[in-house]
């Protein structure tokens, strides 16, 4: 009876999910309610979790609830601690959730909400959650070792070095692109700049409080920090309203880029307790709280989707990012569908905390499903905006012009009717002077969130408050990523440099610290600066690089999973990691190939076009001087070199993987490097 009821419930979930997807896919010409998307996503996630993750747990990973985990075997009370699964789940989600799932879907909305939504749903079930879950499962059998260690053990030392190099370049791109998102959000926005600047003294105050006044009282200090943040948002409104004060906090993108580069350097050099740690605490809590707030706002507001299901830009002519649906949609939405970054978390702290192998399913697979739900919410927030407003915010000035009249005319001509008045009024509602040229996802998401929350909790002038709250929340956690990432990369650079000059390796030495931080900041700072001064808006060019790099890491991680499955002689399940790995390899290689060879959107073609014009003494718009022409040429060359590098890394991974597979198949017995079995019952807790 019980199992019959269970079956009926799953049939009901499948039917509801199918109906919702049908409504989303078939409704044409009329806008639909966002709730259809929410319910469809929840049904798909439930079914994927109940059936596919169970299949992976039992057949592919063969998780064994009687087997002792690293947390039990190596319990040290600090890193390896058997912990309640809900606590591990919360920790894991907080660690994987970042800016990625919020920004990617917003950019992808230019093709309509349907293509992006379908990729998120299918991608997470068959690729993203599989990667997170399987890497966690592998690490659990290997003392909670990291991705790099596992690659070295299963694929060889050189594969490990390739991976380290790949991670370092990925990090540089991630830091640059995320910092660029902040630059785009804060450019010519005194309100936003003031509030985000305020987070620095607030963090310093919190740091001192936690260190000297009331050590370790995180709850108190977080409440204090939150109150001060809200006060700073309110003060920001006053600053923006006062012309003299506003001028002090109004910066152009290039100036903001320099400020961020300087800030990144200082944050990497200072002791962690002073700036990095308190910001990290505040941004972690704010991130979780705001994601929850967004979910509640969508449920209560039940908004209508304004963006068409599919726009004409699936042909690759869109203004937000260039390139066809395949492969560019699949690298634009990276986090949310599949993110290589997560494989580092899944082989970081999480495997050291689980008290039972069986719980990896909820934490690894379930955690990623939650992240995909965040991506769906971001897609909704972008799609409830009037499409004309969306395109005005995300199109570069080179395409739509720099004032509301020309932008409204250009966008209306694309078929998204909008008047200059609407654009001016939207800017006024959110307390900004303009909404034009705010690509990068964060501002669009912030307008969407502000409209949603304002719809639930109306109030005079509150829209501007919520907009700046959303900007602050995104900027805060992006800057925390920049701080922490600079620090991590600094250690990696010092380690590499230490091979040549041993003195540089000592991470506590001031010289090593300054040199490592300087090199690291210079690397991502260069990419950030070129993005900030890029006449085409930067995001347009750099986001594909980020997507390619992130998916490249996911392909590496899934290749590792595939090799392990083959080594365990489970060939008939090789498709579980093999198909998504192949798909990511195809997407990244195709995208990189197009970026290298296409005469219209390729980097070398862009460099050649401007070089030819420069040789003939001509100036091509949007460049206004020979120096700007030269800058565009150099940027294109650097981007082309990076793209070629990523292609090489992907190809190298495939070769290492294939080699390891052939080796494994040549031996008749399983050849995997797992720790020996220890019964859970034999370990005292």
């Amino acid at each position, binding site marked *: 009876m019980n199992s019959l009821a269970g079956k009926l419930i799953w049939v009901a979930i499948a039917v509801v999910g199918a109906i919702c997807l049908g409504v989303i896919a078939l409704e044409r010409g009329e806008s639909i309610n966002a709730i259809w998307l929410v319910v469809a996503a929840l049904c798909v996630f439930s079914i994927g979790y109940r059936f596919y993750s169970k299949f992976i747990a039992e057949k592919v990973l063969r998780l064994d609830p009687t087997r002792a985990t690293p947390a039990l075997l190596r*319990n*040290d*009370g*600090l*890193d390896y*601690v058997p*912990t*309640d699964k*809900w*606590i*591990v789940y*919360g*920790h894991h989600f*907080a*660690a994987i959730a970042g800016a990625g799932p919020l920004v990617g879907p917003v950019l992808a909305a230019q093709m309509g909400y349907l293509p992006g939504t379908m990729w998120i749903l299918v991608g997470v079930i068959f690729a993203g959650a599989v990667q997170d879950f399987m890497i966690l499962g592998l690490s659990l059998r290997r003392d909670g070792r*990291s*991705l*790099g*260690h596992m*690659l070295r053990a299963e694929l060889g030392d050189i594969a*490990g*070095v390739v*991976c*380290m190099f790949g*991670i370092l370049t990925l990090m540089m791109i991630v830091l640059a692109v995320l910092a660029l998102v902040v630059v785009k959000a804060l450019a010519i926005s005194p309100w936003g700049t003031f509030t985000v600047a305020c987070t620095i003294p607030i963090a310093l105050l919190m740091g001192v409080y*936690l*260190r000297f006044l009331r*050590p*370790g009282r*995180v*709850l108190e200090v977080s409440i204090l920090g939150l109150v001060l943040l809200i006060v700073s948002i309110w003060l920001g409104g006053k600053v923006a309203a006062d012309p003299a004060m506003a001028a002090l906090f109004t910066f152009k993108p290039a100036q903001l880029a320099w400020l961020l580069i300087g800030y990144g350097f200082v944050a990497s050099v200072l002791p*962690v*307790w002073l700036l*990095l*740690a308190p910001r*990290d*605490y505040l941004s*972690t*809590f704010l991130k*979780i709280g705001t994601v929850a707030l967004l979910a509640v706002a969508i449920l209560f507001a039940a908004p209508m989707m304004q963006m068409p299901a599919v726009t004409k830009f699936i042909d690759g002519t869109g203004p937000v990012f260039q390139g066809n649906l395949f492969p560019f949609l699949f690298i634009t939405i990276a986090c949310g569908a599949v993110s290589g970054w997560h494989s*580092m*978390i899944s*082989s*970081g*702290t999480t495997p050291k*905390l689980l008290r039972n192998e069986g719980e990896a399913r909820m934490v690894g697979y379930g955690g990623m499903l939650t992240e995909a739900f965040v991506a769906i919410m971001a897609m909704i927030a972008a799609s409830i905006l009037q499409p004309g407003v969306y395109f005005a915010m995300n199109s570069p000035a080179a395409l739509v012009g720099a004032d509301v009249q020309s932008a409204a005319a250009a966008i209306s001509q694309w078929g998204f009717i909008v008047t200059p008045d609407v654009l001016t009024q939207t800017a006024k509602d959110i307390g900004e002077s303009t909404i034009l040229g705010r690509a990068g996802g964060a501002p669009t998401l912030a307008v969407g969130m502000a409209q949603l929350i304002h719809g639930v909790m109306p109030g005079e002038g509150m829209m501007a408050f919520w907009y700046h709250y959303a900007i602050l929340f995104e900027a805060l956690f992006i800057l925390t990523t920049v701080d*922490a990432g600079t*620090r*991590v990369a600094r*250690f*990696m650079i010092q380690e590499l440099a230490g091979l040549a000059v041993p003195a540089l390796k000592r*991470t506590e030495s001031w010289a090593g610290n300054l040199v490592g931080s300087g090199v690291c900041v210079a690397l991502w700072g260069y990419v950030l600066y070129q993005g900030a001064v890029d006449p085409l808006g930067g995001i347009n060019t750099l986001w594909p690089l980020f997507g390619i790099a992130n998916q490249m890491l996911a392909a590496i991680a899934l290749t590792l999973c595939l090799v392990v499955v083959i080594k365990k002689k489970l060939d008939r399940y090789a498709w579980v990691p093999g198909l998504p790995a192949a798909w990511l390899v195809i997407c990244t290689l195709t995208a990189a190939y197009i970026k290298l060879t296409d005469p219209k959107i390729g980097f070398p073609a862009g460099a050649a076009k401007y070089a030819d014009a420069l040789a003939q003494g001509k100036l091509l718009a949007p460049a206004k001087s020979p120096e700007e022409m030269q800058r565009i040429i150099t940027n294109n060359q650097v981007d082309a070199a990076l793209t070629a590098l990523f292609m090489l890394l992907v190809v190298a991974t495939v070769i290492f993987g294939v080699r390891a597979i052939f080796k494994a198949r040549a031996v008749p017995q399983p050849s995997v490097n797992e720790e020996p079995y220890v019964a859970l019952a034999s370990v005292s807790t």
Partner: protein
Amino acid sequence: MDIGAVKSALRHFWRQAVRTARLAIGVADYDTYVLHLRRNHPEQPIPSYEEFFALCQQRRYANGGNRGCC
């Protein structure tokens, strides 16, 4: 429903929430650590919560922290 049961359920929920929040920022559970030291390393001194917090904070960001790398 008896008030005592509700209260204890709420207290349990709050404790779980606090532990989750602390773990999310890299601060392990103090009580567990103390218990571990008492049981396995009775010769070692027991740090105060404040010392333990500073230790966790330093470890989260030391050597690139727990964000994992090759």
